[in-house]
């Protein structure tokens, strides 16, 4: 023992670290390689054996992960758009054009203390944000982003969506009740009442579409409008589209229907007592809701991922199959990088002025080259793979509606509670029933 201790004592700090780390690293590497070699194929077989389950797990994880950047983008978008609309600049300090603002928001929310008021029902209080967030995330499962790119193509997709939308309100109600604050209570009850009265026109307005398509699967609805622009249901069901838009605004608690956190009346509504990441969940859930609602409007009435114009020349680029080049890649890659860099660097060096030295212009040229390559690959994908195309169109339409929601928030004042209810029951409900009746008649007359 003694010589070992002496040996250890003579080693310097780096040597000691190396003595510990290196063997572990070696062992770990060996074990990994062995595991991959030995267990890899059977594991893949296992995955392949029960593919649907794996697919579901992957899809759920992907969607859960996807909500975070979505919420960030929406928050930043709202900050910027509203700011510009009331003649401000908005966030412009953090990141380029303040793009990192919502990221910093996230960190702030994470680093804040979240406390529960005395007298609050802690379990419910803690559970509420999670319920809200999970409910809104789960609705994303049935949204067809692109052909084949859908979480789970349920044949009762719309029903599932409305059910989950109801759950969101449950979360708000829990929050309002458990916060032990009258403002929160008012907010929660308001949200419950609002949801109850707006679920009905929301659902009824879609029934017309369901009758026309004879399916409740969102994918099926999109496929039903994939013919031309005039197959979109906005043209067949304009009234339903309007009703759905209004009701969806109320469903997502957006201005002018943001009763639940009417900041000038009930301080922050259900979220009054929330802080830190608990509040962050509500915050994210709100924006995810906005995204989902816009996505659903796109899916049901604006043809989902179908392009407004068809692409006759969208032939497949099979000749450009990556493997068809074989070992030539070894020559192609450096050549392209080298000459491409020079190609873009030369004009920078020539016309960039004195500030661009040799290396800086070369670096810039390399960056430009990377961007150009990325663009090329994207364009190729856009042309070659229809899911890329579909995704692009879907996102374009959805964000158009997101911006519309933000625009409304920037413009309109808030509706009073009773007027909100009155509007739902006196106008939206009869209108949706009328729409339903007309559609039914048309279906009976035309499609028989």
């Amino acid at each position: 023992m003694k010589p070992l201790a002496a040996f250890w004592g003579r080693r310097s700090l780096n040597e000691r670290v190396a003595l510990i780390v290196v063997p572990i690293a070696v062992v770990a590497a060996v074990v990994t390689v062995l595991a991959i070699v030995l267990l890899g194929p059977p594991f893949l077989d296992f995955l392949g054996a029960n593919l649907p389950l794996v697919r579901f797990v992957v899809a759920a994880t992907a969607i859960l992960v996807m909500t975070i950047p979505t919420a960030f983008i929406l928050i930043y978008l709202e900050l910027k758009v509203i700011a510009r609309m009331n003649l401000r600049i908005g966030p412009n300090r953090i990141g380029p054009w303040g793009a990192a603002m919502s990221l910093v928001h996230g960190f702030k929310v994470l680093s804040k203390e979240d406390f529960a008021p005395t007298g609050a029902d802690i379990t419910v209080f803690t559970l509420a944000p999670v319920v809200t967030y999970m409910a809104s995330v789960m609705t994303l499962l049935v949204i067809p982003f692109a052909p084949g790119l859908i979480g789970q193509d349920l044949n009762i997709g719309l029903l599932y969506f409305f059910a989950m939308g109801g759950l969101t309100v449950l979360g708000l109600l829990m929050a309002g009740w458990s916060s032990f604050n009258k403002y929160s209570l008012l907010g929660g009850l308001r949200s419950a009442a609002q949801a109850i009265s707006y679920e009905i026109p929301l659902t009824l307005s879609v029934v017309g579409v369901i009758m026309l398509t004879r399916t409740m699967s969102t994918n099926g609805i999109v496929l039903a409008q994939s013919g031309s622009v005039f197959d979109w249901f906005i043209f067949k069901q304009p009234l339903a589209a309007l009703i759905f838009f209004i009701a969806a605004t109320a469903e997502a608690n957006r201005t002018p229907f943001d009763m639940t956190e009417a900041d000038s009346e009930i301080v922050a509504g259900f979220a009054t007592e929330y802080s830190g990441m608990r509040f962050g969940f509500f915050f994210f859930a709100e924006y995810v809701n906005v995204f989902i609602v816009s996505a659903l409007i796109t899916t049901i009435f604006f043809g989902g991922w179908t392009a407004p114009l068809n692409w006759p020349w969208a032939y497949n680029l099979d000749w450009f199959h990556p493997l068809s080049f074989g070992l030539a890649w070894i020559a192609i890659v450096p050549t392209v990088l080298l000459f491409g860099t020079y190609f873009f660097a030369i004009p920078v060096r020539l016309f960039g002025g004195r500030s661009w030295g040799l290396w800086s212009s070369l670096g810039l040229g390399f960056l430009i080259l990377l961007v150009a390559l990325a663009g090329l690959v994207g364009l190729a994908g856009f042309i070659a793979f229809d899911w890329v195309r579909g995704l692009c169109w879907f996102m374009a339409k959805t964000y158009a509606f997101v911006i519309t929601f933000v625009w409304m928030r920037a413009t309109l004042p808030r509706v009073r509670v009773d007027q909100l209810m009155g509007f739902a029951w006196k106008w939206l409900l009869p209108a949706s029933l009328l729409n339903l009746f007309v559609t039914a008649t048309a279906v009976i007359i035309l499609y028989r």
Partner: protein
Amino acid sequence: MSFVPGLGMAKGMALTLRRFFKPKATIQYPETAPDIAVRFRGRLQLLYDELGNIKCETCFQCAQACPVECIDMGGFDTRGRFHVHWGAAEQYAERREESALRRSGRPVPDAEYTQFDPIDAAAVDGILAKYDYDQKEMLAILESIQDTYGYLPVAALKRVSQVSGAPYALIYGTATYYRHLRFEKPGRTVAVCMCTTCLVAGAHRISSTLARELGPDTGRQPAAAGMTLKKLPSHIPGARSPLVTLDGEPHAVSQHGAAAWARTVAGRSVS
């Protein structure tokens, strides 16, 4: 409200959409400075020179120019005179504790502020009546006040300015100009001049001796009963160095005799 439902909202939406593309009203401060009006008052503040000394000479011209007399003097500046402040006394640290103490009704222990103590102003009124409230007689008035009280209480000066209507600045200027008018209660203050001549003559050693004898530190309230040890703001012209004053009168104190002198002044027995 228009007859077409939603038209009003549509107008609003159109306006916001147009504003979306309009130039923005934001002034990005550090990059583009806002154009501040020439007359803009901004914040009042005192200037300091490169040595960190306050530039204010306490000439009171600002106090006299201020139309609403919001400029006020208190504390002490580098020349041992009052310091310039703005606004109510409660805003400034030394005065805040002063007025807080006074609000509590207890006597204020701080020797620096004994001169702010309230006084029985009846005598002042009598003196003023004697001089017929004449501002030109200010020096005589102040002298007789000092004869009455033994020193010049600030309260008395304020009283004078209230009753006679003379600006406080004028009275205060007069009081600080003449050396025989003093603000300290007699029998209290020992001051050592620290001018170059006196330092050469060993003023520093004297002051440290006095400090050791009289109390802990210059400016604070020493251990010896009611003695205050100060730096003399400026050398009295004509007085011989080293210059030590007791309540403003110069005393001849040598380096070696300082300790004994201090004990005698403090009223202790000479060992």
